[in-house]
């Protein structure tokens, strides 16, 4: 890690101005759980850090009106345990609680978490850090160098949304839940404020896997909003991983339902751990919508979500696992209907 300057931004506007002044050599830092980690790994090398974690009011959690509004620097812990979120939107609360250890949840912010970068081991472990040196080619880290995961140890990699250039999984849990809940991202940049539906926030890897977010240079995530919906109550974030806690998803599903008795009126289904971005499955939603939910139908919906999936050398099991995770999640969510 090279020497760098560190300053605390008093306001979002000041942060954006400082970022612009640094001409590309700055990064915003909030919790730092991902950025500082990547700096230690030699993947990120900012010359200037602009601390946005003390910006007044940007940690507000508002639940009174028609929307839930989470300030960009609100801590994952605080959002997860906000009573309205915990009781009426379990999918959001659970996605945060299952995302990281309690220590990391006390550090990481809900805005920063949207920008968490992949856990692909070829991406993380070959960048020239002292832990190991530039051994693994990676298009995300070094555009054009190739993808080592393709044809390699790809057990944790994506089966949906992959390209010839990259199969790295989007690591987040919270963004998956937000995807199911049609959240909106509020940003502030040099050109002023801008809102973007979360569905438009993430980019498929395509030929440019190093470009992961539809975020303009210098834009800062200032808030996330979710329109209130009765679907929040009959919801869950179901996550299967290689151990019972403190691990990234092998496959996960965010499900939120509106039910008429046993019949599904509307369904929102998003997937994590299996795709290159947080992944909404309209196909799975269509299968359960309008029908009484049975375990068989739930599994059929799960399978539909993976109709276009492509397995690699070691990760094809995720296609079946992912389908079953959706099936279980649908049953869990349905049981929570009022």
């Amino acid at each position: 890690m090279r020497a760098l300057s560190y300053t605390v931004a008093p306001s979002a506007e000041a942060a954006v101005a400082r970022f612009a002044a640094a001409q590309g050599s700055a990064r915003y830092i909030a919790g730092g759980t991902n950025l500082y980690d990547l700096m230690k790994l030699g993947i990120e090398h900012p010359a200037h850090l602009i601390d946005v974690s003390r910006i007044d009011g940007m940690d507000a959690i508002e639940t009174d009106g028609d929307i839930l509004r989470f300030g960009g620097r609100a801590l994952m812990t605080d959002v997860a345990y906000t009573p309205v979120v915990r009781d009426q939107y379990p999918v959001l609360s659970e996605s945060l609680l299952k995302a990281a250890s309690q220590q990391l949840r006390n550090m990481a912010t809900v805005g920063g978490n949207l920008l968490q970068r992949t856990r692909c081991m070829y991406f993380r472990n070959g960048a020239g850090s002292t832990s190991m040196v530039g051994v693994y080619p990676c298009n995300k880290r070094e555009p054009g160098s190739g993808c080592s995961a393709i044809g390699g140890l790809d057990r944790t990699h994506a089966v949906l949304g992959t390209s010839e250039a990259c199969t790295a999984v989007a690591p987040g849990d919270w963004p998956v839940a937000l995807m199911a809940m049609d959240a909106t991202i509020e940003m502030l940049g040099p050109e002023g404020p801008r809102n973007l539906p979360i569905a438009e926030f993430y980019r498929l890897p395509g030929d440019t896997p190093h470009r992961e977010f539809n975020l303009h240079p210098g834009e800062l995530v200032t808030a996330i909003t979710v329109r209130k919906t009765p679907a929040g109550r009959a919801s869950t974030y179901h996550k299967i991983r290689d151990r019972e806690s403190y691990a990234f998803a092998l496959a996960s599903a965010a499900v939120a339902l509106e039910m008429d008795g046993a019949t599904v009126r509307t369904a929102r289904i998003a997937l994590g751990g299996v795709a290159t971005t947080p992944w909404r499955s309209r196909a799975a939603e269509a299968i359960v919508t309008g029908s009484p939910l049975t375990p068989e139908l739930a599994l059929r919906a799960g399978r539909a979500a993976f109709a276009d999936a492509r397995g690699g050398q070691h990760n094809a099991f995720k296609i079946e696992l992912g389908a079953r995770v959706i099936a279980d999640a649908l049953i869990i969510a349905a049981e929570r209907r009022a």
Partner: protein
Amino acid sequence: MEDERSETTQTCGVTRRVVLASGAGAAAASILPLEQRAQAQQQFARAETGQTVQVSANVNGRPVILEIDSRASLLDLLRERRELTGTKKGCDHGQCGACTVHLDGRPVSSCLTLAAKIDGRQVTTIEGLAEGADLHPMQQAFIDNDALQCGYCTPGQIMSAVACVTGGHATSPDAIREFMSGNICRCGAYVGILAAVQQAAKVMEG
């Protein structure tokens, strides 16, 4: 002290050269005359590196003001700039929990917390938990339940365990296990740790 620092910087200004595989290494400090070196050793001013940032915080109830390399972690501040070595480095990447401390009363991984970020805030480490000779009920519970073996992860476990109870998470064995899962114990003292949290919860919740 200032003198010594500038000296160190000077001695680093060697010319760039490529050392072949058979070549000899380069020693900057060995340029220093012996007497000066001995002197430097005695004085032992801490030379900071990189760009520095001033940090003024409260650590275990005491004010701490220091100028520190802006890249440094809170963990390396505690261990290498203060004599607070109770907090341990197990992974340096937020993957084990051995470095857990409380920042404004909440557990955080000090290895992934920039030292600069504690400015104006309160840090509590394992050394700040007991009140005088009296152990914190959680420390006593760890002894009573032998909730440790090698002891290396123990400070982090205890800092998390205290928060488990004060945050109201010690509601069931599974809730405790889940909350405590950010602290890896390679010796495998998990059964004792669960029992310790349960015991201390009774005392702490009075």
